[in-house]
């Protein structure tokens, strides 16, 4: 054994409470983000067993999934959603858990507000009853999604049994086109290694291209990591990370800030540290991507055509392609740019940050949403919405014919008012194109915010580079 360690191993080692019989370890959990959908059953378990929160200040709760985004304030019209949010509010009051209320300035999607408030910090373990908790790995935090029963354990014990993951280094090399975004890189990676290509592994993104990325881009990369089957995506904390966190409400300040930075600097993988696997992506070869199927790995460069299953040698992949093409209502061999869309959704924890809205607005500026297309922009948080309005981005979208919404998960997940109807086709900046994800029978094409903007103004899937 050498004493060089990867970022993952350092985070792991610094959180092992005890090794358990059978190979798992009990891991200390520093931070827990809570939303209305995955938490009710955990609170019930806590109440039934007469337990309290071990450390109330290590939790942050918010309503995001079920909330309407058309209006904010007043009663939530849908009775089920209203009951779910009310249940969260009762629970957080009863257990003394910090809560960003629906009308507070800190409300937003769990994975957007964790970083925005400074709740998400490097060197911590972060869990949430949500698979896209991978997002917070962008800060060099060991962050992963858990189930509702595990939530109950974290609330009561601040600890979870975990098996150590293997490590995968994803190296980004070379220069990318100005309009190729972190989303395109993530989709290209998933297309290459598959939807289960990184199961059992913690991915660390490395390379000068990663160091050059904004926190928003790093979050997009880490967010999409779960779509390759990995529960953990990581980027080592650096000056970009510190600049982002400096001054945020829950980030350390004063002498603590200096001490924290010194500690965070030690987290980077040691030179020569060994990974179980390495994947290298040549950025110059990555074009803007769009998904054509019903799994995020069914993705191609925008210049490509819908695959012809007859030419796919592997029987199970052929079956998958046939099934996806039928569901998506596409024709084998059809150029992707010929696929007309009904709806455009810009938002979600993948691409609902201010940088994403700027990228989309850059394409939309001075153009109009194509006739017959419904286009909505849903900022990832209330703070993002306010920041965008301060820059006038809301005007750009409204003038072009977009709807400008309040913060929430919205059309990323069919559990609020924003849904697709059967057969409706959507250009979406979210993360999952699963059957029914955006509404029963709905058809989702995943892409970057700039690509979604291009689809909105042309009315079909389009190559954003032609707008340069």
């Amino acid at each position, binding site marked *: 054994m050498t004493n060089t360690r990867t970022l993952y191993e350092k985070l792991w080692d610094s959180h092992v409470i005890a090794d358990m019989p059978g190979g798992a370890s009990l891991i200390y959990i520093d931070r827990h983000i809570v939303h209305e959908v995955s938490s009710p059953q955990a609170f019930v378990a806590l109440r039934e067993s007469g337990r309290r929160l071990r450390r109330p200040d290590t939790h942050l709760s918010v309503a995001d999934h079920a909330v309407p985004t058309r209006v904010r304030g007043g009663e939530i019209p*849908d009775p089920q959603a209203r009951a779910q949010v009310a249940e969260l509010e009762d629970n957080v009051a009863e257990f003394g858990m910090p809560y960003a209320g629906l009308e507070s300035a800190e409300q937003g999607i769990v994975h957007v507000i964790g970083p925005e408030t400074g709740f998400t910090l490097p060197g911590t373990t972060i869990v949430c009853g949500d*698979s896209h908790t991978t997002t917070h790995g962008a800060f060099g935090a060991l962050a992963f999604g*858990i189930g509702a*029963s*595990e939530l109950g354990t974290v609330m009561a014990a601040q600890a979870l*049994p975990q098996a150590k993951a293997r490590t995968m280094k994803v190296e980004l090399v070379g220069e990318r086109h100005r309009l190729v975004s972190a989303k395109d890189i993530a989709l290209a990676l998933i297309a290459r290694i598959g939807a289960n290509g990184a199961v059992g592994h913690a991915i660390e993104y490395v390379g000068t291209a990663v160091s050059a990325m904004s926190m928003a881009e790093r979050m997009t990369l880490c967010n999409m990591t779960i779509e390759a089957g990995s529960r953990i995506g990581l980027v080592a904390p650096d000056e970009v990370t510190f600049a982002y966190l400096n001054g945020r409400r829950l980030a350390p300040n004063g002498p603590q800030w200096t001490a924290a930075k010194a500690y965070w600097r030690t987290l980077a993988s040691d030179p020569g540290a060994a990974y179980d696997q390495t994947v290298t992506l040549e950025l110059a070869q990555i074009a803007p991507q769009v998904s054509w199927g019903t799994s995020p790995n069914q993705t191609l460069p925008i210049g490509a055509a819908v695959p012809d299953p007859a030419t796919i040698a592997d029987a199970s992949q052929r079956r998958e392609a046939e099934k996806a093409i039928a569901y998506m209502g596409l024709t084998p061999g059809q150029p992707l740019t010929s696929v007309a869309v009904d709806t455009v959704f810009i938002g979600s924890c993948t691409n609902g940050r201010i940088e994403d809205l700027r990228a989309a607005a850059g394409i939309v500026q001075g153009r109009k949403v194509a006739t017959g297309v419904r286009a909505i922009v849903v900022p990832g948080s209330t703070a993002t919405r306010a920041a965008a309005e301060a820059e006038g981005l809301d005007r750009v979208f409204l003038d072009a014919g977009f709807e400008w919404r309040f913060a929430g998960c919205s059309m990323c997940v069919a559990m609020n008012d924003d849904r697709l109807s059967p057969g409706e086709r959507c250009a979406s900046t979210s993360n999952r194109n699963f059957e*029914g994800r955006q509404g029963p029978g709905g058809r989702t094409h995943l892409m970057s915010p700039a690509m979604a903007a291009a689809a909105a103004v042309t009315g079909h899937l389009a190559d954003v580079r032609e707008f340069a």
Partner: protein
Amino acid sequence: MPAQPFITVSGLAAAMREENIDTDIIFPARFLLITARAGLGRYAFHDRRFNAQGREVPGYVLNRPGYAAPPVIVAGANFGSGSSREQAVWALVGLGTRAVIASSFGEIFFSNCLRNGVVPIRLPEADVAVLMDAAEAGAAFTVDLEAQELRVEGQPIRKFVIAPERRLAMLNGWDETDQILNQYSDDIASFEQGQRAVQPWLYV
């Protein structure tokens, strides 16, 4: 909340010859507004079982006679990928399913299974292919967690492995939170003391 103790289950296996059966297929997102964990079986695979008018889709495996509540499911690779929703597992339990056989699983789904008395059995792809055919032919399946054996009519006995502490908890229906608090409370407290010295900013 302790799950039902698991010893063995036997019966027909539903063959789901499809890869990437994600948690949205197992439990569509729109039903997540339900805050109960009991009674979710009727939503399991909802959009495969029922058409837009709410009528059963003929030919779908769970709509075949004898397969409405299959104790075992045999599925393609990457079963349970996608979201962390534990409802996917609660819905399986509600349906009557206590074991799923596949060559790979979504990781969060996998650990959710173990906490709810559903045995996720990972076997090589070639074995899964053989078992898929056997399931389709109506063979009887027995999952024996105690012996970690899968016994299928007309097939050699196959071994599978579940992490020892999880297996013990499942066999006894133990609650994981209780176990941790009983065995590790002192370790947790001393960890916190140590961490407070190194990262005081995490303790405000």
